């Protein structure tokens, strides 16, 4: 069979309407670019990071470390190894070189006394130079070999403004030190440390300055060229004390790279999530464009039916047009994906992330998924218009009015309600029943939300006309209501006369703004809950944190505790352990924490922490069915086991978490180097807040990475972090809103094209160009305000539902942010004006005679 007439009609149809579908293509392109960009970026960065670690461990044949009892290998807190082991290992046959691997926190202080800010951690390491087992390269200068010498990665040295020979101050886990910069290092092909700063010392200096106490994180082993690695590995295993293990260098590199890759994957998934939202919004635009084009081609399609085109051929033709649009857009989108990946890399590097230099990788999976998604979305969005086109009766070729009734026939109301209800049901099940944990919650709720949006979009057709009328009456347009002027009345009637078009155009905006409303409700609720909790439970006068997430050197907290100006001082540490076979995070504090945070003790006493007891939050106490005096069995990550007595039960877990032990208990069971997540302190009696602050700041001067905050500052800094996160979320949602604006512009342009004769007539009977423009613009405003209203009406309940579903330890209050809602409404008017610029200009440019003569 020849498919040629359908193919020909399809291609000609696209060509004849190329400008009308340009915006549609643009919308799909941006969605596909987002998807492929996320894949390209994560693939490329992961590839580069894998290479980096393979290079770093290039000479390490074997690595000796302590075993862990459970948990993720790369992120585990291992007990350190004893460096005295190295002698025995070095004596074994086939061992060429043995080195201690030591990596601790060491902050570079710039010449102005401020710490060097890095996007990654600040490391201090033990280094024997490029001839050793560590794969770091020496770019300039010499290898540090004695006390008082340091080599810093070239990128960090440059950012801090240091050159070879400069005196550099560094802050390690036990205090400050001054060093001469003798060398500049690189990692793999880069001059940096992948966003981290790396200060390298000779092994003896490193041991002292980094407070390692003759311990190391692990021991690297290099073997002789003629030795068999497996034999050496076996020989080492035989001499190792219990609790130790020996692995290959590759395994070690893979574990470390794998941990970082997981973070990159999460980043990629977030990007993909937003790409999905953009594509969903694009689908509305595609659907709308095709629906409008079908109704504009009513007579042509009816003629085809009259001369013998089958319904199927009409379906194929319209879907085929979707296919062509999808293919073009996907091709462009893949190219755009390279741009997106480059852009994000550039933005992050500008912010100091120092992504390893990577060639952009386009894997076949990226290409295949982009094609499936880009073409799939476009074709799926064209299906309904295609089905409608197939319903056009042939007689409409002679009597078009008969065709329009066919186009309008639909079971919209029933389908819409069914979709909406199943959407709400799925969303709620995902959120409240949480089948399959986080994945089930996200998946179920996301599908539910998609159905919900589709249901609302479908039902909004029913209310589009009356709501448009109300909007045009209410909107306070310059001086008088819109409906008092001819352009205003025309705009209002035009918005009402094609409710389906108005509704689906508005729906695209609805999706973006519903998500914005939802996120803002959740964020406001989190913020409010957090502030409430802080006010209710935290009584500490000062908080000291380190915003680089690396924690604070314990020496800092110890020195604070000695200050006479301060009363109670307690650090907060954390570890993981198996309780009843499940991995739990366990906090470790001094009993003084009780003066700083009100954990709402129900039974027992916080002082029991000093006796080696454990405190439980009410929920786990109930789950384990234990009371004060009972015992809890715990397995620590290094394999040690303890049976701890329950010394108390508390009811506020907002700061403390679910489990608390004493610092001494932690030190007994784990010899992993401790860090303080934060330190709380209050002022000694009779000391003024100024004096206390001055004393704290004086100690903090020796630990420049520490951030001293009073309660208000602490609260503000936590809120700022939340706001930063929100800004990123809003920024990504703006993409979807931008596509919705394209959609409004597109619909208006198509409507203007359709109403050419009408506009000609209006101009002929005396309407000015300005009034014509105004009527187009106002119609766009009505559509976008309608979309914003729908978005708010849908988004706020969704946000409230999420806020209710979030655990009480996280969200206790539900807040609807009125400011945000007002902002959205005002912004939607601006969106309408913006979207109408081109269509209004086009309408005003029409030549009267041409317009009337147009068939």
């Amino acid at each position: 069979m020849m498919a040629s007439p359908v193919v020909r009609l399809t291609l000609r149809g696209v060509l004849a309407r190329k400008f009308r579908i340009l915006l549609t293509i643009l919308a799909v392109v941006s969605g596909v670019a987002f998807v492929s960009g996320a894949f390209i970026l994560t693939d490329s960065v992961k590839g580069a990071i894998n290479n980096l670690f393979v290079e770093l461990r290039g000479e390490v044949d074997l690595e000796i470390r302590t075993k862990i009892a459970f948990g993720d290998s790369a992120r585990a807190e291992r007990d350190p190894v004893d460096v005295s082991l190295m002698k025995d290992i070095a004596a074994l046959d086939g061992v060429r070189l043995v080195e201690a691997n030591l990596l601790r926190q060491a902050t570079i202080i710039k010449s102005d006394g401020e710490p060097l800010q890095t996007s990654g951690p600040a490391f201090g390491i033990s280094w024997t130079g490029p001839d050793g087992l560590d794969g770091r390269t020496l770019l300039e200068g010499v290898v540090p070999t004695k006390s008082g010498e340091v080599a810093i990665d070239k990128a960090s040295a440059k950012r801090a403004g240091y050159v070879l020979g400069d005196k550099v101050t560094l802050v390690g886990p036990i205090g400050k030190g001054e060093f001469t910069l003798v060398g500049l290092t690189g990692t793999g092909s880069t001059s940096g440390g992948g966003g981290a700063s790396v200060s390298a010392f000779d092994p003896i200096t490193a041991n002292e300055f980094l407070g390692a106490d003759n311990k190391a994180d692990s021991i690297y082993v290099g073997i002789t060229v003629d030795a068999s690695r497996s034999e050496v590995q076996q020989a080492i295993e035989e001499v190792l004390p219990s609790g130790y293990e020996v692995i290959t260098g590759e395994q070690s590199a893979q574990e470390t790279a794998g941990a970082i890759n997981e973070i990159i994957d999460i980043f990629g998934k977030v990007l993909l999530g937003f790409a999905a939202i953009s594509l969903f919004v694009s689908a509305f635009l595609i659907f709308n464009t095709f629906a409008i084009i079908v109704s504009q081609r009513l007579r042509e399609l009816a003629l085809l039916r009259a001369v013998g085109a089958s319904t199927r051929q009409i379906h194929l033709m319209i879907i085929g047009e979707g296919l062509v649009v999808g293919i073009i857009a996907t091709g462009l989108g893949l190219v755009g994906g390279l741009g997106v990946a480059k852009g994000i890399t550039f933005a992050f590097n500008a912010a100091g992330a120092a992504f390893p230099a990577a060639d952009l990788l386009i894997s076949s999976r990226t290409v295949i998924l982009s094609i499936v998604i880009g073409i799939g979305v476009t074709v799926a969005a064209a299906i309904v218009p295609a089905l409608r086109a197939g319903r056009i009766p042939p007689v409409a070729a002679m009597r078009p009015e008969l065709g329009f009734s066919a186009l309008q026939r639909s079971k919209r109301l029933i389908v819409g309600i069914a979709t909406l209800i199943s959407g709400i049901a799925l969303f709620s099940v995902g959120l409240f029943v949480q089948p399959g944990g986080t994945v089930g919650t996200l998946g179920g709720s996301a599908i539910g939300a998609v159905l919900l949006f589709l249901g609302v979009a479908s039902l909004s057709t029913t209310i589009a006309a009356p709501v448009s009328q109300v909007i045009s009456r209410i909107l306070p347009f310059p001086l008088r209501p819109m409906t008092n002027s001819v352009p205003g009345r025309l705009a209002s009637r035009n918005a009402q006369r094609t409710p389906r078009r108005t509704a689906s155009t508005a729906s695209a905006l609805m999706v973006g703004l519903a998500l914005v409303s939802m996120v803002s409700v959740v964020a406001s609720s989190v913020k409010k809950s957090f502030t409430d909790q802080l006010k209710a439970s935290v009584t500490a006068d000062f908080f000291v944190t380190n915003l680089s997430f690396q924690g604070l050197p314990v020496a800092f907290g110890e020195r604070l505790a000695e200050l006479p100006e301060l009363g109670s001082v307690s650090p907060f540490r954390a570890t993981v352990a198996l309780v009843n076979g499940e991995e739990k995070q366990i906090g470790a504090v001094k009993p003084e924490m009780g003066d700083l945070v009100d954990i709402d003790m129900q039974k027992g006493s916080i002082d029991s922490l000093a006796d080696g007891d454990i405190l439980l939050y009410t929920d786990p106490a109930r789950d384990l069915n234990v009371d004060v005096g009972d015992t809890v069995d715990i397995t620590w990550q290094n394999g040690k086991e303890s049976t701890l007595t329950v010394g108390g039960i508390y009811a506020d877990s907002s700061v403390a978490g679910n489990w608390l032990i004493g610092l001494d208990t932690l030190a007994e069971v784990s010899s992993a180097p401790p860090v303080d997540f934060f330190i709380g302190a209050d002022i000694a009696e009779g000391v003024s807040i100024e004096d206390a602050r001055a004393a704290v700041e004086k100690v903090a001067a020796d630990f420049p990475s520490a951030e001293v905050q009073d309660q208000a500052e602490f609260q503000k800094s936590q809120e700022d972090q939340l706001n930063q996160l929100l800004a990123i979320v809003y920024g990504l949602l703006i993409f979807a809103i931008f596509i919705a604006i394209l959609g409004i512009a597109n619909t208006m342009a198509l409507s203007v094209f359709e109403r050419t004769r009408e506009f000609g007539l209006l101009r002929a009977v005396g309407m000015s160009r300005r009034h014509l423009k105004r009527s187009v613009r106002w119609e766009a405003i009505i559509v976008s305000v309608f979309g914003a209203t729908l978005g708010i009406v849908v988004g706020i309940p969704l946000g409230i539902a999420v806020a209710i579903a979030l655990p009480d330890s996280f969200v206790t209050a539900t807040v609807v942010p009125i400011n945000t809602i007002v902002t959205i409404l005002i912004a939607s008017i601006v969106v309408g004006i913006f979207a109408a610029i081109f269509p209004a200009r086009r309408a005003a440019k029409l030549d009267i005679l041409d317009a009337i003569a147009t068939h």
Partner: protein
Amino acid sequence: MTDVSTVAAAGAINASKIYGKDDSEVRALDDVTVDFALGQFTAIMGPSGSGKSTLMHCLAGLDALTSGRVLIGDTDLAQLDDKKLTDLRREKVGFIFQAYNLIPTLSALENITLPMDLGGVKPDQEWLDTVIDKMNLRNRLSHRPSELSGGQQQRVAVARALASRPQIIFADEPTGNLDSKTGAEILAFMKHAVTDLHQTIVMVTHDPVAAAYADRVIFLADGKVVDEVDNPTSELVLDRMKRLGS
């Protein structure tokens, strides 16, 4: 005309078409029985609202009757589903409309062969050449409709209707949008199609001059066949029309 075939190309038997219900009921066709002989050029005339367009739509399978039967050849249209009807329109029926006859994105030749292309049938090249030459379109074949005059567009439409050698061609006011000179030219082409190429054409018109090109004129009023004239002249048709109007 002497050799009028007795074989019917199409016909309606007790055809009724009712729009609306109860009070607003409109009888567009009221028990119409009529035959259209093969090889004949028939005009259907009548004032606005007489049902002439409805009759043609029903005859052509574009619209369904409320009661009665329509036959194309010996096929009863009521027995056909949408797919069979589509096939019938493509193979057995040709159409010429008043306006919007052509697909704007296809060339003249592509428009002419469209019904056969849609059916996946190869056009009979000899016949196609005959039709193209008869319609004087040889040097216009690669043009798009927008590059053709109104008369040329209508000639392409006639050629398309003829190209698949349908059993019967229906024309709905084919000259309604044309000036009288071009209109006369089109009607002459249609007449040639019947006399020289032995085609069957049924044409709805309200123009007595156009009707005079037909072999036979059927007059409709209020949904009924009220009169019939063979070998008409425009004066004769005008006269009958006046009588109908009074």
